[in-house]
C-alpha cells in the first residue's frame, strides 16, 4: 500500500530531525526497516541514482522516493518534510547567532564545535578514500589529487574545474574499462 502524502511528510521530517551529521543512515532505517516501503536492493538502486546526480543527495532521494509513490505531489511532500522543519530550527539558530554571536563564551564554543566538525568531514574523506587505497587505484588517486589542488589550493571556480574534470574522468574510466575487458 503506497504511503499517503501526510505519511511521506511525517516520515521524512522524522528522519531529518533525527539526522545529526547526515540523514542518509536514518533514511535507510526509516524507509527499509521501519516502514518497509522499499527492499534494501531498491533502496540501494535509488541511492546510487541520487548519488551520481549533482546536488544534496538526500534531497534528491526524498523527491525521487516521494514521486515514485505519489507523483509530483508525493515528491514535494517528502521534500518539504525533509527540509522544512530543520530550516525553521536553523533559522532560529541564525537569529540567535546574529544577536549573541559576539559573546565571548559562545564564540569559544562555536570555535570548538567547528574544529571538531572539520575533523568529522576529514574522517568521511578518509573513509571514502580507503577503497581506492586498498585497490592501489593510482589513476583515481591522481584525479582526486588534481581536483583537490585545483579547488583547495589554487581556488579555481567549481564550474570551470568540473567542466574539465567530469568529461576527463568519464573518458579515463571508459578507456580503463575497455582495456580491462568486459
Amino acid at each position, binding site marked *: 500500500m503506497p504511503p499517503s502524502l501526510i505519511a511521506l511528510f511525517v516520515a521524512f521530517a522524522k528522519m*531529518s530531525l533525527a539526522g*545529526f551529521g547526515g*540523514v542518509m543512515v536514518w533514511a535507510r532505517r526509516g524507509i527499509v526497516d521501519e516502514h518497509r516501503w522499499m527492499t534494501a536492493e531498491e533502496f540501494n538502486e*535509488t541511492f546510487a*541514482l541520487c*548519488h*551520481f*546526480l*549533482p*546536488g*544534496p543527495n538526500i*534531497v*534528491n532521494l526524498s*523527491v525521487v522516493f516521494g*514521486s515514485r509513490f505519489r507523483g509530483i505531489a508525493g*515528491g514535494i511532500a517528502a521534500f518539504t518534510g525533509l*527540509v522544512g*522543519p*530543520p*530550516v525553521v530550527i*536553523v533559522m532560529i*539558530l*541564525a537569529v540567535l547567532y*546574529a544577536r549573541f*554571536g559576539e559573546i565571548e*563564551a559562545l564564540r569559544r*564554543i*562555536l*570555535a*570548538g*564545535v*567547528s*574544529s571538531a*566538525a*572539520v*575533523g*568529522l*568531514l*576529514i*574522517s*568521511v574523506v*578518509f573513509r*571514502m578514500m580507503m577503497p*581506492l587505497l586498498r585497490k592501489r587505484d593510482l589513476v*583515481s588517486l591522481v*584525479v*582526486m589529487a*588534481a*581536483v*583537490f589542488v585545483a*579547488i*583547495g*589550493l589554487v*581556488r579555481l*571556480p*567549481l564550474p570551470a574545474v*568540473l567542466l574539465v574534470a*567530469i568529461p576527463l574522468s568519464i573518458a579515463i*574510466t571508459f578507456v580503463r*574499462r575497455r582495456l580491462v575487458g568486459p
Partner: protein
Amino acid sequence: MNSGGNPILSLVWTFALMSLFAVGGANAAIPEMHRIAVEVQHWLTDKQFADVYAISQLSPGPNVLIVTLIGYAAAGIPGALVATLAMCVPTAALAYCVSRLLTRSSQSRWPAIIQAALVPLSIGLMGASGLILALTSGRTWAALLVTAGAAVLAVATRLNPLWILVAGGVLGFAGVIG
C-alpha cells in the same frame, strides 16, 4: 552580480548554479560557497563562515542547511528561504526527470561508468572542503589538534558524531582553543 547588486538575485543565481555542479553533495561544494560568500560577495567574514558551518553541523537535518545560513547572512529570512530553494529545486527537478527516464531501464552500463568516474572527483572536492575549513582565519594550533583528534576518533570508533561535536564545544568553552 557583485555585492552592490540585489543580494536575493545573487543568491538565486549562485545557488541554483551550484546545485547543478555540487557533485558529491553540499559538503563537496563548500570551497565554492566559501569563494563566493566570503571572497566575491562578502556576505560573511572568514570567521563567520566557520561559525556558520559549525551551526549547520550542530543542527539536525541535511547538511545543505549551511546554504540556509549563508542566505540568512546575505539577506535575512527571505534570503535564507530563497537560497535553500535555489540549492534544492534545480537538482531535485533533475533527479525527478532522470529517475522517470531510468526506471527499470538500467541495462545500459553508462550509469555505472559515470558513477565510478565521479567518485574520485567528489573525494577531491570534500578534501578541499576540509582544507579550506581547517584554514579559515583564526585557527590556532590547538584548534588544528582538536580537528585532527576528532578525525581520528571518527575514523577509529563508531561514536555518534554528535558527541564528538559536543566534546569540541566543551573544549572550546574551557578555553583550550584560544
